[in-house]
């Protein structure tokens, strides 16, 4: 096993003690980012930040630990954009008026999004306004804001889609919410397609990422396996547009 795999495995062993299984994936952390003890505190930390409070359009990944933040966005009447799982059916749009009072927590689950949210394909997404804030989970991340992963994450691909459409810029804030055990001090160069985060929020603290890596500005197709592009309709459309 190489060193990166060792780091990831060690984190996952610890994480399972604090995490909740997925309804379908159980404990398979290669397939999902889990909810964990203290995720609600991460939500409160983000919600108290000025960059959240002044944000009108917030992108939140479908990771399980961010369900409470997605619900909070609805309660705070923000426009919420959430990718479908594995970006297989584009993105979701969800707004306050879509969800009756008292049902926000359900609407924020992946199953709930299927009930309440509006689909956004590439064209609809592109015609919308820019995004003010992006919040993501991560499997394992270092203090420089770099994900420890042998392959690009779905968030990396989502960032590239949004960047290509001009909906985010280099200085659009990106926050990662993770459990403390998922934040490691292991230096790592980002994958060529890899994005970086600006802020890392855990149940016990909030940390500015110390790294100097820029966020990618364009999709470098030579680094994307065709298989990945084939399974993500938005990427395929972007590729075909040239």
């Amino acid at each position, binding site marked *: 096993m190489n060193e990166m795999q060792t780091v990831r495995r060690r984190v996952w062993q610890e994480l399972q003690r604090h995490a909740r*299984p997925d*309804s*379908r*994936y*159980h404990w398979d952390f290669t397939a*999902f980012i889990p909810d964990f003890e203290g995720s609600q505190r991460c939500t409160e930390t983000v919600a108290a930040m000025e960059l959240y409070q002044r944000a009108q359009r917030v992108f939140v990944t479908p990771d399980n630990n961010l369900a409470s933040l997605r619900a909070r966005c609805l309660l705070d009447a923000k426009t919420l954009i959430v990718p*479908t*799982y*594995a970006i*297989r*059916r584009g993105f979701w749009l969800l707004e306050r008026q879509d969800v009756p009072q*008292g*049902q926000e927590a*359900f609407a924020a*689950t*992946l*199953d*709930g*999004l*299927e*009930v309440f949210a509006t689909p956004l394909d590439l064209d609809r997404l592109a015609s919308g306004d820019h995004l003010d804030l992006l919040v993501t989970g991560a499997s394992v991340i270092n203090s420089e804001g770099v994900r420890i992963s042998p392959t690009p994450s779905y968030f990396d691909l989502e960032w590239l889609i949004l960047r290509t459409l001009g909906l985010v810029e280099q200085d659009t804030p990106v926050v990662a919410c993770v459990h403390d055990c998922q934040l490691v001090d292991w230096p790592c160069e980002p994958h060529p397609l890899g994005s970086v985060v600006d802020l890392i929020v855990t149940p016990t603290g909030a940390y500015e990422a110390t790294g100097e890596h820029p966020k990618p500005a364009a999709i470098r197709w030579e680094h994307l396996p065709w298989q990945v592009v084939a399974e993500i309709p938005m990427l395929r459309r972007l590729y075909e547009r040239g």
Partner: protein
Amino acid sequence: MTDRTRTRQQVWSELRAVAKPDSRFHFDFGEYIPDFEGSEAATERLTAMDLYKDAQVLFITPDNCLERLRTQTVRDGKVQIVSTYGIRRGLVELRPEDVPPGLERFAVLLDVIEDMGRYISLAELAQRYRVDLLVTGASAVSRAGVRFGKGHGFFDLEWAMLYQIGVVDAETPVVAFVHDCQVVDLDLEPRPFDTVCDWIVTPTRLIQVQNPHKPVSGVLWDMLKPGMLEDIPPLRELQELEASGLAGTKG
């Protein structure tokens, strides 16, 4: 390719036109049983039947097409036992009193039900309940009530476990809940572990099956697929119950 596999593929291509995607599996029918257009009508058909009305305790699989039934079960004041996906975390008991009024439709979603209900062991299930009715989805079902699931055999395992602990018997009705395109004209012999349905309910019709084959052997331990015992906690519990003489063995 066997008859069952070929039929399943054919059905899936028709089903694609009427199916709803899963939040994670999208349209990958090998991983889940989809909800479909007309499931509301099928649910009404089922809930109009005496065997539903008279049931106090239902066993309902976590298939997406059964979301409305699970919701109605709560609204009608009945208890339901629902398996977790892949039976990986055993069985969930959801009682009407567990669900705040107005939230019935959400309480039964896979992402919510384990928080609204509670896990129940086989031992506790046997102590507190008898199951009056079982309802399952399927990938396809023959007119003679022989189901094909995703190929994983979970419902047959669930039947075998419930039978072995004595909460169901050979008379307990089993209903298959499917879209019309999932009912096929294949003449299939049930295998020893195939739990054949008493009724098939679709959006447009009700099909009754005469003398459906119901396995009475309990869990066939040497037929379990590799990994099943490790992955399915109630199977391990059942082994312990058997070993302590608390759960009937074959026959």
